[in-house]
């Protein structure tokens, strides 16, 4: 099972930008401890949500043929708490992409209010400089992503074609 930390994409422009949505709920058990009586979404998990949004955007740009791994958090600045009941939008944009890696910039927005700015770098690990080998199977992109992208694909003329993520 893959751990999916965003609920769906609402915009997807292949190779350029994407917007995903996450609904935050008090049913997420970690919020009971973070913090007792004052539940807020951990900022590390805000970064994870952005990493999934931007990571899928980067993966799709190469037809899900590369294994895309979060390699560096270039920037993570937070301006407000995310609380249960919030719907956050994760806006991700590809700034640079090469055969070896990609750089993205992103914003988390709740009802038009800027919550965080998160810039990331991803490595295409099969193209690593040390020449290390990884399993042939793409363990990053599995069929699980299909459901995340389904709605946005139905409603837009995105370039993703069915079955590409099966590589």
């Amino acid at each position: 099972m893959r751990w999916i930390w965003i609920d769906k994409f609402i915009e997807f422009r292949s190779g350029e930008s994407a917007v995903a949505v996450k609904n935050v709920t008090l049913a997420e058990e970690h919020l009971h401890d973070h913090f007792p009586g004052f539940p807020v979404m951990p900022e590390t998990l805000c970064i994870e949500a952005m990493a999934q949004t931007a990571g899928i955007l980067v993966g799709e740009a190469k037809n899900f043929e590369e294994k895309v791994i979060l390699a560096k958090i270039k920037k993570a600045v937070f301006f407000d708490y995310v609380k249960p009941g919030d719907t956050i939008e994760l806006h991700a944009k590809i700034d640079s992409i090469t055969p070896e890696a990609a750089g993205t910039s992103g914003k988390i927005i709740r009802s038009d209010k800027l919550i965080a700015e998160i810039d990331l770098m991803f490595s295409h690990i099969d193209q690593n400089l040390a020449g290390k080998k990884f399993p042939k199977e793409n363990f990053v992109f599995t069929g699980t992503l299909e459901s995340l992208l389904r709605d946005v694909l139905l409603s837009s003329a995105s370039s993703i074609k069915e079955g590409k993520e099966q590589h």
Partner: protein
Amino acid sequence: MVMSRDEVFEKVKDVLVDALSVDDDEIKPEATLMRDLGAESIDFLDIVFRLEKAFEIKVPREELFPAENILNSSELVSDGKLTEKGLAELRERLPHTDLTEFEKDPDVNKLADLFTVEAIVNFVDNKINAN
């Protein structure tokens, strides 16, 4: 875009401060990226992306940091040291770097020391002021 060498240095400094989370005063021309500034492999790509944006230039990665390909060749490396051919290759690929010290003992472990702040400034200076 015409810039003086000092202007290039200042801008490279900003790039490195942001990319490596180091202080301004750590960025000296002779500082090495890996040993002194703590850069890891992914940081090199980050630096390339940031240089491209800051100076509006294209930086083919192998032009600025070409050593990786050399390390994988048995013809160019022997017993952990660069061969004559390896050194010739390195000189060709790093025209902006002073290799005099390195040539005395071309240990591959010291390759990382070649990537200095000054080497980046030389590279960028050459790139923008040659066009």
